């Protein structure tokens, strides 16, 4: 507990400064560099010796170095920022920690508050804003906001992006649109950095959409093949659904929390926390923004685009899934956390929309990952599942845990994706069952990195995933008998259970994936005429071989990070530091990232983890892995050795013998039939029956009215046809009757495909509606 927080919950003044270290003030450079690189590649890329890749790599490298320096500057700022450092330019507000009156000094340049956290040091965000334009009294600003969250994202995005750039020079080498690929990688990186640095919601919307456009272009990189361009379109259109939520949510925020005056994120958050913002408006905003998260971050039921997005080149998948695009939704929730905190009343509750969406996603996608044969799709569903963890964590109020999981997940998921790309590069396929197996003999280095990534994802001690997953589980507050302590924001038992199930599932499907890819006998190499969609010039399809250094080194680096990054946030009570520095490595991440005690962040409680919980969670993961291990490594392997066949499963496993299991398997293979629901029922319904119904109304009700006859009933369709066709009115009415002798037959002719007919229906419908309004208002 933080008594000082409970007492002085939200300070009355902004904990924001606009005077700080040069690096923090100029963080926009980090986003600008890749943007410049995009333009350079576009115009000069093809003429350069490395076809434009050098621009991208140089720009992102510099950005990466700047991001590291900015991180260091932020740590210094976090620990040492005082008003003295920046003299009289920044203002100081002293909060004595007991919630007593604050002595406010406001100077022209801005306001900063000294609210203390456990270390007695204020968390002061840095914001630099310039006015873009002003209209009708509303200022439209452009600016950057730098605090722990954005600094962390800068580091993750630039690092993953740099590694992906390097990896891509080999992976897409020789591709026909190599230069374009790098141009869009740069733009993608720039968009995400722009989004992360936004200091107002308008800018966030722009960044959000830019990221969407870039992902569209990159997923459809090989658009000549229909499935790829379909996948790109699907990603784009599904995201449009969520964007409606985003727009409505942001507009609601602008009017409710921004008082119709400002788009500024910090001000909006402060207004919410200080109360006085309509709760109803916040509920609406939170629900709408959750829908936006559902599409962008691939939560149920709008996640369907994400596995299809695997049609893009593998480095892009790594970038989309680890650092950009899908984490945009999570980042947005983290940035606007007070909206959810207040709107969904996270504190003291045990269920809410966001957390439940996350929990369902986490288990649902984990199950789906079991039935995928495509290695990238396994990883895609795994990402969906892990994003479910993050959304759930945010929903239960475990802000730091969610952000920490985002951080660790970025490294091991990038590792896994790039590893799968390395394997696919060797066998020219993504199909684990047909073309892989036994790869550890051919690619020992990739194998080791992939296993490290898998273990980290499965959350085994002491790899990165363990720490972040454990922290999420602890902070659900639903541990009951497992003996956690501290003050989790709520008691989300259901979500805790789902989290546990998810941990077991994750471990199990990764075991399956590792077995099918790397163990057993090599099943590929027998069809040399395999469709080669990399357009690379290797030309030899003999034995697969280990990838080159530009693919391997990124894998090594990411593996190292997958092992180590968990150590930045040791829970309290674990490996206490030296006497000089008692905190040691404990909760460093929390200290630097979470804006505890600042004016724009709610006073979120933290649970203290227990050994029991950590052990039980690990056991659950091990049990999941063990079950899959027994099945594949022991049973299948033994049978395969005995029969000498290439096996990917037991011939009479449970799915073939048990009807219930078979039904479940079918449900999973069909991805819960969600795609059927969208294309067949919703889209088909709109195009088919609803359009038909509209036309029927037009033909029967409207024309009937014009005709002055009451021949509008369904049953009298035949009658209508006859009477009209007998020549009462020639024309539109006639058109419907000409070619058919029954009304049902007639209805099939609505889909003439002629725009003008549709337009006629639309205009007539509008006229009728307007007429109805006029009549309603008149009487």
């Amino acid at each position, binding site marked *: 507990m933080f008594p000082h927080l409970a007492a002085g919950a939200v300070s009355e003044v902004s904990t924001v400064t606009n005077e700080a270290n040069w690096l923090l003030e100029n963080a926009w450079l980090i986003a600008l560099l890749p943007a410049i690189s995009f333009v350079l590649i576009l115009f000069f890329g093809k003429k350069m010796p490395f076809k434009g890749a050098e621009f991208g790599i140089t720009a992102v490298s510099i950005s990466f170095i700047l991001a590291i320096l900015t991180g260091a500057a932020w740590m210094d700022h976090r620990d040492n920022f005082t008003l003295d450092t920046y003299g009289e330019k920044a203002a100081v507000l002293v909060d004595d920690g007991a919630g007593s009156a604050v002595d406010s000094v406001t100077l022209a340049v801005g306001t900063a508050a000294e609210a203390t956290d456990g270390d007695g040091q204020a968390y002061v965000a840095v914001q630099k804003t310039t006015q873009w*334009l002003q*209209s009708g009294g509303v200022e439209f600003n452009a600016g950057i906001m730098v605090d722990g969250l954005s600094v962390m994202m800068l580091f993750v995005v630039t690092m993953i992006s740099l590694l992906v750039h390097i990896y891509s020079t080999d992976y897409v080498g020789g591709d026909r649109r190599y230069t374009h690929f790098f141009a869009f990688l740069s733009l993608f990186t720039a968009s995400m950095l722009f989004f992360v640095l936004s200091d107002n919601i308008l800018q966030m919307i722009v960044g959000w959409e830019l990221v969407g456009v870039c992902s569209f272009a990159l997923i459809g990189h090989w658009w000549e093949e229909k499935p790829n361009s379909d996948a790109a379109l699907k990603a784009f259109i599904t995201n449009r659904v969520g964007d409606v939520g985003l727009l409505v949510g942001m507009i609601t925020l602008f009017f409710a929390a921004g008082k119709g005056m400002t788009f500024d994120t910090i001000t909006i958050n402060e207004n919410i926390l200080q109360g006085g913002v309509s709760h109803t408006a916040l509920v609406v905003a939170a629900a709408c923004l959750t829908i936006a998260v559902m599409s962008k971050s691939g939560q149920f039921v709008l996640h369907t685009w994400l596995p299809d997005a695997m049609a893009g080149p593998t480095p892009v998948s790594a970038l989309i899934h680890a650092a950009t695009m899908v984490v945009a939704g999570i980042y947005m929730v983290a940035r606007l956390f007070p909206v959810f905190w207040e709107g969904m009343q996270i504190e003291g509750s045990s269920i809410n929309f966001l957390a439940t969406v996350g929990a369902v996603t986490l288990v649902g996608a984990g199950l789906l990952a079991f039935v995928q044969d495509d290695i990238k799709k396994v990883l895609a569903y795994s990402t969906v599942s892990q994003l479910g963890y993050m959304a759930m964590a945010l929903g239960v109020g475990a802000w730091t845990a969610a952000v920490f999981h985002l951080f660790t997940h970025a490294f091991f998921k990038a590792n896994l994706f790039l590893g799968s790309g390395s394997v696919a590069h060797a066998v020219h396929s993504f199909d684990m069952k047909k073309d892989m197996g036994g790869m550890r003999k051919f690619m020992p280095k990739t194998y080791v990195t992939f296993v490290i990534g898998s273990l980290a994802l499965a959350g085994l001690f002491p790899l990165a995933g363990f720490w972040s997953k454990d922290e999420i589980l602890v902070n659900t507050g639903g541990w009951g008998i497992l003996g956690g302590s501290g003050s989790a924001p709520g008691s989300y038992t259901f979500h805790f259970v789902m989290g546990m199930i998810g941990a077991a599932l994750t471990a199990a499907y990764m075991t399956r994936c590792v077995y099918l890819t790397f163990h057993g006998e090599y099943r590929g190499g027998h069809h040399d005429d395999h469709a080669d969609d990399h357009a690379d010039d290797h030309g030899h399809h003999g034995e697969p071989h280990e990838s080159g250094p530009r693919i391997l080194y990124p894998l090594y680096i990411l593996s190292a990070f997958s092992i180590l990054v968990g150590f930045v946030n040791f829970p309290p009570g674990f490996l206490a530091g030296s006497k000089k520095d008692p905190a040691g490595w404990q909760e460093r991440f929390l200290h630097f990232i979470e804006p505890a005690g600042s004016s724009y962040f709610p006073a979120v409680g933290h649970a203290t983890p227990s050994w029991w919980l950590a052990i039980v969670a690990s056991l659950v993961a091990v049990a999941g892995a063990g079950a899959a291990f027994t099945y594949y490594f022991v049973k299948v392997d033994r049978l395969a050795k005995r029969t000498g066949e290439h096996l990917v499963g037991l011939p009479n496993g449970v799915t073939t013998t048990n009807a219930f299991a078979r039904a479940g398997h079918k449900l999973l293979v069909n991805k819960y039939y969600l795609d059927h629901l969208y294309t067949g029922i919703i889209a088909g319904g709109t195009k088919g029956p609803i359009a038909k119904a509209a036309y029927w109304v037009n033909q029967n009700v409207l024309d009937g009215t014009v005709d002055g006859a009451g021949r509008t009933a369904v049953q009298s369709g035949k009658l209508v046809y006859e009477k009209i066709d007998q020549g009462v009115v020639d024309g*539109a009415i006639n*058109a419907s009757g000409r070619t058919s002798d029954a009304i049902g037959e007639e209805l099939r002719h609505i889909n003439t495909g002629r725009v003008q007919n549709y337009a006629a229906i639309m205009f007539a419908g509008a*006229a009728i509606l*307007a007429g109805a309004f006029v009549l309603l208002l008149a009487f």
Partner: protein
Amino acid sequence: MQLLAQVSSETDLYVAQNIFFAVIAVTMIYAAFRVVTTANVVHAALWLVVVLAGVAVQFLFLGAEFVAVTQVLVYIGAVIVLFLFGVMLTRASMGDDETVAGEKRAMAAIVGVLLFAVMAMALVDSFEDTRVDIDQPQGVTEVSDAIFSQYIVPFEAVSVLLLAALIGAIVVARKD
């Protein structure tokens, strides 16, 4: 037009204006009718000129001088020329358009009449004999002040739209 406006503010009858209005309005309606019924594409474009000019005169009646001038410049000057180019480039029969199926015409006529009925009903019902008095024509200064202060954002949006349309038209129409 300023002269007319002054006359009208003194006499309450607006006789001259109303007669003038009626003449223009009838001309416009007839011309518009010809635009949508004539079989000759070039004739239709020329009838459209008459309608557009009539609209410009209506703007003058309403005191919107700048809009009237823009109407003449942009529409009659540019848009019509564009249309005539389009007619030539598509080599659409300079003569008669093939007759349109009767059924479609009837359908369109029904929709049109229905729309008009609804609108007329609503207009007559809500505005009855509300008067619109134009004492002073709108100055260009006023309009430009409004555009560049209050309506600056829509103005910028329109600029971007025009640019996008420019690029779009090139992309759509270029040969390759």
